[in-house]
């Protein structure tokens, strides 16, 4: 019986990749364990190993082909006694079993990672794909409304990952006091490949691989910042920054005040925050609200690549400790980024991403994906939503939100974090104080559910917000 070899996924968030090379040719006998082909994404490479025995009957995808969707049949193996010339592929992309991945992630196996595996950290492209990952609208279709550069600026399409890397590289070229430290930032090129090529350009003194000791290296980073250097401390995820939160809060955020203004702490703590896909409760926490609670910190959570670049550059230049919350699922998404020598955005300014007159939707980071998609759906039903991207959580630009609510009279908030004391709760409180007389309906919050993030695909999906929930909430405050 002929067996299809499927395009494997290197991570739960990978959608497609390049078939870089075939190591076997048609007619070759295949044993289990033989390396058949090499697959590449912008983050990683892996080898496709045969699981079955037989003869490589047909190569369906030529080597060098880019954009091969996960689970596409790439070759057919003829079983014992079959005529390789007459075997047929099973056809269209199909899943391998119950949502499992066709191949293991060789990277992790090869390195024998048993401690802190950070499952998603070790693997490929991050375009959303897995069942629980939120669907994402085409970003190009929705041009930002309020841009912070001249209209005729040439644009390049970049992933958020590339924009972040460029922001760091530009600032490191500009200022010798800027350096980056963290786990796997140098030789590995970044657990999520955000620091790709920084080691090659700046060398090991300024791109510092640390041991897996978040508390210790966060403290070392803060100490270096107190001494006047400008560290960028990368956490493989902000979940691991829990180990370091004492240094972030007690040392970085408070020392300026406790020293009567003598000791500033120019440091950026950055890394992916919130849920990726199928990594369960300890790797899915959204800390936006936590850090936004602390005076002495600035907290940034961008959505687009352009904002990621402009705001990370601003964060690195800022003389204060900045928490820069990224998102694994957004890393691989592409957006237009202005082609400017020095594109820096102001911290603390929200952006009206889409104008509308009927209801205000306030969101940030990956929450914007639900908000924008819901706005599209609402438009089809005759409701024009104004979508505000906060971009910075602290200091919060509530003036932009209030101005919008004065126009629409209605507001909902969207975030993946937990409901209690969340960012949405803060916006509700501010609107009560500053826009009460303009509100025609109670402000509603769409948030992640009040449960630890489950692993099972169906439960994870239930735990996250949905576009339908956003649409329903928007209609409800419009009494429709």
């Amino acid at each position, binding site marked *: 019986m002929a067996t299809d070899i499927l395009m494997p996924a290197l991570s739960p968030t990978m959608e497609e990749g390049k078939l870089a090379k075939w190591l076997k040719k048609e007619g070759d006998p295949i044993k289990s364990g033989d390396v058949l082909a090499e697959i590449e994404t912008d983050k990683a490479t892996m080898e496709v190993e045969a699981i079955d025995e037989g003869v490589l009957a047909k190569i369906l995808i030529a080597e060098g082909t880019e954009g091969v969707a996960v689970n596409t049949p790439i070759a057919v193996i003829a079983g014992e006694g079959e005529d390789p010339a007459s075997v047929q592929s099973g056809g269209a992309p199909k899943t391998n079993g119950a949502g499992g991945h066709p191949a293991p992630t060789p990277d992790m196996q090869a390195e024998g990672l048993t401690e802190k595996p950070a499952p998603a950290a070790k693997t490929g492209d991050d375009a959303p794909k897995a069942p629980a990952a939120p669907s994402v609208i085409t970003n190009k279709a929705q041009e930002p409304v309020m841009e912070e550069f001249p209209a005729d600026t040439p644009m390049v399409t970049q992933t958020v990952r590339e924009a972040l890397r460029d922001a760091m590289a530009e600032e490191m070229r500009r200022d010798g006091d800027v350096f980056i430290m963290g786990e796997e930032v140098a030789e590995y090129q970044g657990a999520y490949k955000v620091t790709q090529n920084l080691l090659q350009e700046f060398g090991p003194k300024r791109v510092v691989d640390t041991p897996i000791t978040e508390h210790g*290296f966060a403290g*070392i980073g803060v100490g270096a*910042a107190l001494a006047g250097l400008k560290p960028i401390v990368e956490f493989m995820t902000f979940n691991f920054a829990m180990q370091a939160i004492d240094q972030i809060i007690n040392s970085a955020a408070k020392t300026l005040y406790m020293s*009567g203004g003598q000791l500033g702490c120019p440091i950026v703590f950055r890394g992916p925050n919130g849920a990726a896909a199928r990594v369960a409760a300890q790797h899915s926490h959204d800390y936006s609200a936590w850090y936004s609670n602390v005076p002495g910190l*600035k907290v940034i959570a961008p959505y687009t690549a352009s904002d990621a670049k402009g705001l990370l550059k*601003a964060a690195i230049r800022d*003389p204060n400790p900045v928490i820069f919350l990224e998102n694994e699922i957004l890393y691989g998404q592409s957006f237009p980024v202005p082609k400017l020598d020095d594109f820096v955005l102001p911290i603390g300014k929200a952006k009206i991403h889409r104008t509308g007159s009927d209801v205000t939707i306030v969101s940030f980071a990956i929450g914007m994906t639900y908000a924008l998609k819901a706005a599209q759906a609402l438009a089809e039903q005759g409701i024009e939503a104004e979508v505000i991207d906060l971009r910075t959580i602290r200091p919060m630009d509530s003036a932009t939100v209030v101005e919008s609510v004065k126009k629409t009279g209605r507001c909902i908030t969207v975030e993946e974090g937990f409901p209690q004391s969340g960012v949405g709760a803060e916006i509700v409180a501010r609107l009560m104080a500053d826009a009460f007389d303009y509100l025609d309906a109670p402000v509603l919050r769409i948030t992640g559910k009040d449960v630890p993030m489950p692993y099972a695909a169906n439960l994870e999906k239930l735990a996250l917000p949905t576009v339908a929930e956003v649409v329903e909430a928007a209609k409800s405050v419009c009494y429709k």
Partner: protein
Amino acid sequence: MDAAKEPAKDASSSQTQAGSPQAAEAHKPAPNMPQFTRAEDLHAYHEMLLIRRFEEKAGQLYGMGLIGGFCHLYIGQEAVVIGMQMASVEGDQVITGYRDHGHMLACGMDPKGVMAELTGRRGGYSRGKGGSMHMFSREKQFFGGHGIVGAQVSLGTGLAFADHYRENGKVSLTYMGDGAANQGQVYESFNMAALWKLPVVYVIENNRYAMGTSVARASAQTDFSKRGLSFGIPGEQVDGMDVRTVREAATRAIEHARTGQGPYILEMQTYRYRGHSMSDPAKYRTKDEVSKMRDEHDPIEMVRKRLLELHGVPEAELKATDAKVREIVNASAEFATNDPEPDPSELWTDILLEAHA
């Protein structure tokens, strides 16, 4: 094993253990005891006495309700920070935990500014916003004053990281107590400091009690000089009551760090006469233990005796020093009492720095 019981008398071993308070019974002047010149002893006397009198005054002001919150006195441990400072050079950084008044004075910070911070006044080093445990002076390269036990160890390692990065030849003197030495981040920092050969001297001030818990009840390994062994960090136990042994060990350790050989650990065997803080139940040790240490190993008395007997300094000269020190301390107390509280507007300052350009 005999070698373990009887450490070799070389630089990297516990050569000064005989003079330590832990081995008080065996206390005899070692034949190779480092000597101070008259000027050095006079300097040490003045500096240690300043700390002693300052702390006594702070205790008094606390009792009068002028100092609030927590107040941890350094009385008894003066030789440690003074001996260390005598071996350091200008520009070397100092960072410590919350028992920090002595370190600030030793770094040359103004006693008025320190005392005014204790009383929460606008002339305090942190404009009244830090208090006893949180004071800093960028000018004197004193980086606090930290209230979270052990946090200063990672921070001090970070100061050394900056020195290493800048190749400026400076050394970070990072102090901690025997209690802090059990914190996890201390070992994370040891590891990275050794890995990257950072110029840091870790000074473990073993005053035998972490609050009320004796070292033996809290530490599986009570020889703190060995705490860096698994990272290859050399360590020594030092008689922290004798400013001469402190300076000698400090010179060795600082040289090691400054010449690119990486971190060094000094366990300073010392003793605090006062409670952990001002509200100490004093139930965890006997009065005899305290008075024995005061009577037989007081760091200031030892210098005073040497000045009189060895250097032939007239008693009158020492009395003049005493008077001068009292004057400085009284002036600081007076300033700290009369200086106004911070302006209410200070509530909202120093939270964030203005971003420039």
